[in-house]
């Protein structure tokens, strides 16, 4: 990790210093819309590639979460750090990582962001300060807390954003992390993306305090809940939360968002009632945002068409790049076990003997007599 500043004391900026203006320009609104469409098209294409067995493993999509992704990521500075769970393609896109390299990772190819080692759940890009998607529920929380600790120790004005799902607030690491951040006054914003469901379990079934942002009270941490279907509201809430974090008051932000499809690509979500599915569709953040902008005369049919066409082109190029990228060479299997070379590291393929084969003609006395 590059050391970004040498001053020991982290300047505590005023809560409002970093907050972008609440009313975005027309250009910004269009950029939000285009970003959301790109995420939507990217995810739909990923689902198709998965069903064609181009993508393996588990694949969780941000379908329905586009406004939350876009609003949150737009509030970050370039030097801020992001930790997410495994549902993170959109966050990587919005952080500015090339769609080609993300798609190549989903395809498990050498040009992927994690060189094909991580897959859909484990995107990582140091240059974008995208510190990883994590597949173990809650696993990213202590790590993100530690990143904030590093910033605090070294001094600096960066902040950390740590994403998680609603279900993740029930795991011990959530509580341990929030407490640590609060007692140490770390520059971190924990963001709960509340899509109402773990896999099939609802927030109400799983959480004794279903207003999840209120859990911050146990740590005397500031918190807020925001409509995750509104990118502008999310951006404003995230900006305020980040300003608080930079000033030494960590923050818990809950974005109430939607999940349009199953938990992962393979989940048909039969446990959801027709009404629930229809409600999620009706709350589609992209359709909703487009309707609002259209009505206000701040978006045209032509711009919608352009956004869709451009997104399709970008995604098609990403797929072409991924398909052309080589599969990682099996000879690189042992390249990333240790960062420091070490004697006697076991670099054996399955079934390889520990020691080379015995000499062809043995001079050792036969020992099988005992069996006879």
């Amino acid at each position, binding site marked *: 990790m590059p050391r970004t500043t040498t001053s020991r004391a982290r300047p505590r900026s005023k809560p409002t210093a970093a907050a972008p203006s609440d009313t975005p320009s027309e250009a910004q609104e269009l950029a939000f819309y285009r970003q959301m469409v790109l995420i939507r098209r990217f995810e739909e294409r990923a689902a198709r590639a998965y069903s064609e067995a181009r993508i393996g493993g588990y694949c969780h999509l941000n379908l329905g979460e586009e406004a939350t992704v876009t609003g949150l990521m737009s509030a970050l500075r370039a030097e801020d750090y992001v930790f997410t769970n495994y549902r993170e393609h959109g966050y990587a896109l919005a952080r500015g990582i090339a769609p080609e390299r993300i798609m190549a990772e989903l395809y498990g190819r050498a040009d992927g962001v994690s060189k094909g080692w991580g897959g859909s759940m484990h995107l990582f890009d140091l240059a974008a300060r995208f510190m990883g998607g994590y597949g173990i529920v809650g696993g990213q929380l202590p790590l993100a807390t530690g990143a904030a600790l590093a910033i605090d120790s070294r001094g600096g004005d960066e902040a950390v954003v740590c994403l998680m799902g609603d279900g*993740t607030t029930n795991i011990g690491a959530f509580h341990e992390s929030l407490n640590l951040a609060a007692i140490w006054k770390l520059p971190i914003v924990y963001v709960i993306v509340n899509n109402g469901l773990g896999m099939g379990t609802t927030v109400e079934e799983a959480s004794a305090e279903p207003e999840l942002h209120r859990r911050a009270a146990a740590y005397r941490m500031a918190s807020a809940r925001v409509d995750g279907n509104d990118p502008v509201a999310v951006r404003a809430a995230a900006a305020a939360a980040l300003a608080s974090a930079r000033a030494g008051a960590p923050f818990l932000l809950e974005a109430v968002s939607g999940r349009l499809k199953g938990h992962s690509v393979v989940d048909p979500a039969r446990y959801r009632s027709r009404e629930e599915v229809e409600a999620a569709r009706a709350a589609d953040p992209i359709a909703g945002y487009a309707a609002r902008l259209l009505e206000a005369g701040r978006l045209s049919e032509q711009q919608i068409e352009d956004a869709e066409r451009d997104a399709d082109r970008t995604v098609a190029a990403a797929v072409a790049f991924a398909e052309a990228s080589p599969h990682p060479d099996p000879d690189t299997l042992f390249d990333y076990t240790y960062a420091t070379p070490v004697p006697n590291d076991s670099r054996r*393929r399955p079934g390889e003997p520990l020691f080379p084969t015995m000499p062809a003609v043995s001079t050792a006395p036969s020992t099988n007599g005992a069996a006879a």
Partner: protein
Amino acid sequence: MTVISYRQALHDALREELLRDEDVLLMGEEIGRFEGSYKITAGLLAEFGAKRVRDTPIAEEGFTGAAVGAAMLGLRPVVEIMTINFSLLAIDQIVNHAAKIYGMFGGQAKVPLVIRTPGGGGQQLGATHSQNIELYYAFVPGLKVVAPATPADAKALMLAAIRDDDPVLVLENLALYNTSGEVPEDLEPAEIGRAAVTRTGRDVTVVAYSRMAVVALDVAERLAAEGIDVEVVDLRSLRPLDRDTIVASVQKTNCAVVLEDDWLTYGIGAEIAATISDGAFDWLDAPVRRVAMAEVPMPYAKSLELAALPSAEDAAAAIRETVDAVARRR
């Protein structure tokens, strides 16, 4: 005899025990309304209700520990941990409490707990979701660890685990859920701690468990065509370990190959090799070979995953080389 899947066999064992003993209850993430990530518990919430089929939040340490506590009061909880990888979040409660309570309190409290959890990889699930870490539990006195390879064993060992008064980890396997086999309707619980010779042969002993015990039988058939007569020992139980069955087989064949889905160094196979060295030293005509996973964090890319996973070809090659080594010695 009926032919059912490994998944169905597990389901049937759970259902029969829920019917037989009202102290039995199921706990785990998504086991009720969602019917289980791998659908083992399908229909059980509807049949037995939410007190006996309890959906839990994502809180492995909390609900596994709660199951240990409930077991101390005489319930027989069967906890599903979605995959063995997530058991790492509960390992403190399993190792420090479930395994210790009987001994640490001088035998005053028993822990009749079952933990069901699948291992297995091979589906590009990546480094954190492809581990076979049953060894961590098989290492611990006070725990029992069983690893069925067939539907009949899945059912018989699950029945035994639920009726056992000690904590038992039942290692299932993602790749086995859809396999099928004969299961007698009046199947009795198995005796935990016994291996089985699932194929008799003269030339070489192959020791395996769980998915690899199925691979072993396939490879044995293939090698029979080449004139190599393989004996297969399916461990079925990793702790206690049936050392006598392993040693008796090697005393007959004079050589052995271990197939395992975990990592090589310090793996289950290391214990098998040590057992053979100790109990069949004078009979051995070749080093004990182990076919295991490459020692790397499992990569996602298919090309790398294939290189890291032990395959039937790797197993066949190691067996051939072992038989050749014996022939050279004789």
